[in-house]
């Protein structure tokens, strides 16, 4: 892939699949291990679901911006929506006993589980999620990575 690439996507379910496919392709091209590719693609899928459903609420006039940037140390993925901004204090812990049998609310948890760093920046004009996967071993063009 180029050092950085950005996509502007509609607020549809197709976008969720496309985002996942792009993440899978890029992570594979960068040489991440198979299980890491799955983790990255799933984190991107969950981020895209949040952007399309909870951020933009399927609004046809609102877009999802998906960007990938790679450095020798990191793959940095940014997903931005144009919704009202997520309230981080309202996100329950899905591992709490009282939440274990809830049918939703695991997306951000999975993103945090699968990526090395996840930063969520809500604002009144949308939410930006920045996710970082560190490069290990032979990934990202064969360069030795950091921990």
């Amino acid at each position, binding site marked *: 892939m180029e050092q950085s690439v950005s996509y502007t996507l509609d607020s549809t*379910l197709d976008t*969720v699949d496309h985002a996942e496919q792009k993440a899978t392709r890029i992570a594979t091209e960068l040489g991440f291990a198979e299980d890491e590719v*799955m983790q990255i693609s*799933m984190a991107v*899928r*969950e981020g895209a*679901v949040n952007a399309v*459903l909870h951020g933009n609420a399927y609004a046809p006039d609102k877009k999802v911006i998906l960007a990938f940037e790679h450095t020798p140390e990191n793959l940095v993925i940014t997903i931005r929506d144009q919704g009202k901004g997520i309230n981080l204090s309202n996100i329950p812990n*899905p*591992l709490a006993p009282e939440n*274990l*049998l*809830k*049918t*939703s609310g*695991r*997306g951000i*948890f*999975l993103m945090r*589980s699968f990526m090395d760093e996840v930063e969520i920046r809500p604002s009144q004009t949308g939410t930006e999620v920045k996710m970082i996967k560190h490069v290990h071993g032979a990934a990202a063009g064969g360069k030795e990575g950091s921990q």
Partner: protein
Amino acid sequence: MSMKLSTRQVDGVTIVDCSGRITLGEGSVMMRDTVRDLLSKGNKKIILNLGDVNYIDSSGIGELVSAFTTTKNQGGELKLLHLTKKVHDLLQITKLYTVFDVKDDEAAAVKSFK
């Protein structure tokens, strides 16, 4: 690959063979409709065979939870069979592995119903 479901009866237990992806959209809806249809017809001993499920997202996990609780609330039992490593790992990190009754042998799973 989209999701495919087929059902069969073994000794009074309904086995739902699932393949493909259980994800937001079609896959989740199919799972929900199938389990609800089974329950409405009185089939309350259900095994979801996930041996050919190669991908599941948080919506799919939510559907498994929904299927489990809906069945339980109607006096039935729902068990999971043949988890792939990916699904197994997901249920582990979400702490749902111990919530579900997970089996790896079909005959034993069928016999385990009361």
